[in-house]
């Protein structure tokens, strides 16, 4: 098994295969399943993601009423105006938001790598798809490439907001997405690593401070930013921009920041946006009591 991004990229370069193929082969080896079975299972996950986006674009609302409907607003805006940030970017944003709105409404999603960060990978995939016209297999491969980078983060740092803050969730998801975009757009394995490093660098330090402890505010919009960050970083890497700090060291830095992050900022609803006057007022409305401890 590849232990870090350097080994992952080397495996791809030495065999002259894409990152997705390294991941597929490893999965077959580790689980002793056939290629068809492994590809089939990933296609099922892809179908779940498609359905989540579709549901979200029709409009959903969470039980708390805090989130829902923004994906529809963005899509309507795109139909009636030329978005300043460009069509593809805003399309990705709306689809990332759609996924997380469905998640908040207790709908069915595929965690990538977590539920709270489930929007970045499918949001970017279904937006980039409109531009690059990938085959179904290319789309499945996108998920394997995302998974390969995610696995390195999960094993060397963390993908849990409670353990590492939002940088470990949306930061990881955005990094995974940017690496996959690069492969789909025809970039090299090393460029995927650069894209992931650039994305994650810009997510370092991000705290997990959900209002009322719900995976809604700011999680839904953080996925929007994660998706845009992923696309911009992918473009930078495809342009030949590299990260001065190697990808594995960025992951290590993320891990250390997470370890030293006070627990108030790790999914406990004790700090950040959760502790704002409005955040506390929302808690009162939902629970009739405050989650504040001190």
């Amino acid at each position: 098994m590849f232990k870090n991004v350097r080994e992952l990229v080397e495996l791809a370069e030495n065999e002259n295969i894409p990152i997705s193929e390294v991941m597929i082969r490893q999965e077959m080896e580790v689980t002793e399943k056939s290629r068809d079975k492994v590809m089939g299972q990933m296609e099922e996950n892809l179908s779940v993601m498609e359905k989540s986006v579709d549901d979200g674009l029709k409009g959903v609302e969470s039980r708390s009423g805090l989130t829902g409907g923004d994906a529809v607003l963005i899509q309507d805006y795109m139909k009636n105006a030329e978005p300043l940030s460009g069509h593809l970017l805003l399309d990705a944003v709306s689809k990332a938001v759609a996924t997380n709105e469905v998640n908040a409404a207790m709908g069915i999603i595929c965690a990538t790598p977590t539920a709270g960060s489930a929007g970045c990978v499918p949001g970017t995939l279904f937006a980039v798809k409109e531009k690059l016209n990938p085959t179904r297999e290319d789309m499945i491969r996108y998920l394997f490439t995302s998974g390969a980078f995610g696995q390195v983060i999960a094993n060397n740092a963390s993908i849990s907001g409670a353990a590492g803050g939002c940088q470990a969730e949306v930061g990881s998801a955005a990094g995974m997405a940017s690496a996959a975009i690069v492969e789909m757009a025809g970039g090299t394995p090393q460029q995927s690593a650069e894209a992931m490093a650039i994305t994650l660098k810009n997510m370092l330090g991000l705290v997990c401070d959900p209002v009322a402890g719900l995976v809604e505010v700011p999680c839904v919009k953080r996925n929007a930013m994660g998706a845009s960050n992923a696309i911009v970083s992918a473009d930078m890497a495809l342009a030949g921009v590299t990260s001065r700090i190697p990808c594995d060291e960025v992951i290590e830095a993320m891990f250390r920041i997470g370890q030293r992050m006070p627990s108030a900022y790790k999914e406990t609803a004790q700090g950040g946006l959760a502790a704002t006057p409005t955040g506390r007022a929302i808690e009162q409305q939902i629970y009739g009591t405050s989650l504040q401890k001190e």
Partner: protein
Amino acid sequence: MKYRSVFDIIGPVMVGPSSSHTAGALRIGRMARQLLGREPKWAKIYLYGSFADTYKGHGTDVAITGGLLDFDTFDTRMGDSMKIASEKGIDIEFFEESAKTDHPNTAKIRIGDDEEDIELVGISIGGGKAEITELNGFDLRLSGHHPAILVMHNDRFGAIASVTQILAKYEINIGHMEVSRREQGQDALMVIETDQNIDPEIVTQLEKEEHIMQVVKVSD
């Protein structure tokens, strides 16, 4: 390495809103039920760390209850699990604990019926993955991602060999194994994760061995 399969990262398919506080929590509840071997009549669930702080918002209580009912992570009945449990006459209580634990998402679960009860500690480590770290006072590590058997035995020489010989006879390969005991010469616990599923027939045979008290099967 904790995460071995790509589907730990791209997955699980689940009912929202939180992979650690909903899907992972459900898996802890479900492993508890498997270890008891049947539906419990009562459950006392103690939540620690971030679980205790935010469980209401994430539906952690609803999810653990869903696990005790043997629901999967994508079972849409999860939202109604409390109601379903109460209709079945299962008495479930939740307690918010303030003690510090090694992992921020920790739950201690005591479940049982008129005949038997068990106590375990589970942690949700991120992305929907969960591990059992303690069972009836024994330290262990059980991921629930491989078929496994838990063997309660007397801490005597030959006990482990008798188990591995039977597994070898049925061509069952052991992927991970650990043994723990509270005191030398007393009760001990073997945790054996295997690559193949273990037939009930093998479990019966294992239980016949000298020094083996009880064998519990946990499926993948």
